[in-house]
């Protein structure tokens, strides 16, 4: 338990500028051992810059960080304590998976025999035991990602950084890889920083979330806290999404717009056909709780009009909504 409460990564006011352009404007967060932190943000938010600073590839313009008790002024010592799967890690084609991981084991100071035994164990852990003797050039994308994870674990790191590990994988591959991420945190007791654009997956595996927008932290805390915080906003309280059969969208829209507690109905952008965004009339005062049956009444109206209802979601109830809400300006 004590192990779980141990802080393995603390970032304090990290800043980075490329010439006059600031890329990171005061990043602060912490991560405990055995926990998974989702590191989110739209493209250009500063995620990769942050990861490269925390993995000592880049130097920050200001600020500091500590990894497993080692300050950022000792980069070589930090590299002994971290494992990294970069977003676009290249692999040599003419070596086998076993040779690849063994080589990195040796670079961390292991003897040839020890490094080979460690590599074999890690390949077993990541499900590549049967393909360890094959050339890396023959691996699929998913296998390469798992090989990259095995490489990242070769030094038994205190913190593992995974930058878009599920990118380009099929759904099954994504699921397997996320299970592997959970295994790293829970079984190996490492702190995991997971960068991903797959928000539903992040929501399902991450204990903590940091959302970056234009180089700044716009939300951080446990996943539940971040989602809960957004739900308490006006958007979270007064908007729902309804999924109806696509041929009935026009009828449903007319019907909903005629209801007294509906303020506006929109076709939800960026989603599958048939989704309608419904903005409800806000209570007269923020202290007044909204009518708890208002969603029932909307559904009742649709059922009576024999419009097939396929689904209903409370806007702001998912990490995706929070993400879009908080990073809207940056995306636009």
């Amino acid at each position, binding site marked *: 338990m004590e192990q779980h409460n141990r802080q393995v990564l603390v970032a304090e006011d990290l800043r980075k500028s490329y010439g006059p352009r600031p890329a990171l404007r005061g990043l602060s967060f912490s991560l405990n051992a055995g926990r998974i932190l989702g590191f989110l943000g739209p493209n250009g938010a500063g995620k990769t810059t942050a990861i490269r600073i925390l993995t000592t590839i880049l130097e920050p313009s200001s600020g500091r960080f500590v990894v497993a008790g080692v300050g950022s002024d000792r980069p070589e010592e930090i590299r002994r304590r971290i494992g990294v799967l970069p977003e676009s*890690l290249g692999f040599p084609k003419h070596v086998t998976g076993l040779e690849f991981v063994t*080589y990195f084991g*040796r*670079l961390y100071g*292991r003897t040839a025999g*020890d490094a080979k035994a460690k590599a074999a164990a890690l390949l077993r852990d990541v499900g590549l035991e049967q393909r360890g003797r094959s050339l890396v050039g023959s691996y699929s994308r998913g296998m390469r990602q798992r090989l990259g994870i095995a490489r990242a674990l070769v030094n038994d790191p205190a913190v593992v950084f995974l930058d878009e590990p599920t990118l380009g994988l099929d759904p099954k591959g994504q699921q397997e890889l996320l299970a592997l991420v959970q295994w790293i945190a829970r079984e190996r*007791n*490492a702190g995991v920083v997971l960068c991903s654009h797959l928000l539903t997956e992040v929501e399902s595996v991450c204990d903590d979330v940091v959302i970056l927008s234009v180089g700044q932290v716009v939300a951080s805390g446990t996943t539940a806290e971040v989602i809960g915080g957004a739900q308490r906003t006006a958007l979270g309280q007064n908007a729902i999404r309804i999924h109806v059969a696509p041929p009935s969208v026009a009828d449903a829209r007319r019907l909903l717009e005629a209801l007294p507690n509906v303020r506006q109905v929109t076709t939800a952008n960026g989603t599958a056909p048939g989704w309608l965004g419904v903005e409800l009339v806000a209570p007269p005062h923020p202290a007044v709780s909204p009518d708890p049956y208002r969603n029932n009444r909307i559904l009742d109206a649709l059922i009576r009009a024999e419009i097939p209802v396929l689904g209903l979601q409370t806007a702001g109830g998912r990490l995706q909504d929070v993400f879009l809400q908080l990073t809207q300006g940056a995306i636009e």
Partner: protein
Amino acid sequence: MSHAQVANDSGAPFTRSRAPTWWIVFGREFHELWIGGRALSLLLIYTLLLGIQTYVFASNSELSLIPPNEMVYETLKGAIAVGLFISLIIGADSISGERERATLEGLLLTPTSRRQIVIGKFLAAASPWPAAFAIAIPYMTVLAQGDEVLRPAILWGAAIGTVLAPAFTALGMFVSFWCNTNKTSLFISLGIYILFLLPAQLPGRAQTGAMGSLLQQVNPMASHAHFLSKILVNHRTVAEFWTWLLAPALLALLIFGLLFLYASPGLRLEAGRARLRWSWARAAGVIACLALFGSSPATALQTAQQPIQVAIDLDYKVVKASDHVLFSTVVTNSGAEPSPPLIVAMNIINLNAKGDVVDPEDWSPQRTQYTEQLPAGGSATLSWRINAILDGDYMVYMVVIPQPAGQEATSHPVASSGIHLTVTPFTRLNPGGVLPYAIGGPIVVLVGILLIYRYRRREIDAGGAR
């Protein structure tokens, strides 16, 4: 006891290797370069070029009559030039190539110091040179035809190549260090290589004037070639020409300093060095220029009268191309006074080609001969050799030129009778016995590649060696 038990941050103990990490990086890079096939492919091309050059030297009737020491020198020069090119392009790929293949980041994320990464990569990238030089030795041996030139050729070739090949490797790596893509790195490296070759392409006068000589001496490619030609072809001493080795040595020192002391600690994911200090870069540039131009060349100048007669002991001769003709001339002073010093010059006229003059330099080791003044009634006998290079109909004759008495005097050259020389064609399929080497060299390398490929397959089937 070569290992120590240590515990990492997670507390799991493991046996720590005492092997330096540059050695581990070298091992991996060496394996990748040789087993991956890149070095062997380049060596195969190199062996083919060397085989073709050797065969051309021996088979072309013009060139086959070059003395063995010149053929050995030319082969050695070619081997070094191609060896340096291979070293340069392997070096040029070593860092930018890793950037392009996105494999550098993985390496930078390990606790290995940047300098150790660069040292390991450099040693691997420099490894093709010993193999390239070893391949050239049999070719030089067959072209030497037992001439004593072989030993100094091997000695000086090994010494100069062992300085220049690593320097060119380091130069390629230094370029690669500053490039994000392989295309840029290879393009710039190729440009630098052409720049080194360029002085040799200048017109003859531009190469022999003071400035031309300076250019030759500061250019490591030209200066080492000049040194080798003087030592191997002209049998001059090292003491006379050692200064021509300064440029290669200084280039090596400069590049090693720049790569290992200045650049390598700042190796990073993006091209260039972290926190470049321009003042140091400028200083290094100035030092390089001063060092290269500081070694001034030594140039030398050379300058040069009668009842004189000249006779030849041969009237005509029919020979095959590649045969040689030996004859003598007798210069007689039939006057009452001693003659001035005399120059006897050989001339060859092609009778088939409307009297074109043939350059005797290609046909004879002695284009001119010199005799001291002849006493009244005295004579001197001179021996000549003509190598029949090309088939055709020729007239060979000699001219005796008495040294003029001064700047405002002239003399009367005297011509001999001619030798009518008929050269008939002759070709051989296996000149000088080089054919087995010309064909065998590439085959041996090809078999080597196949054996390594087979060994690698077995190694993979057995789970990998490393």
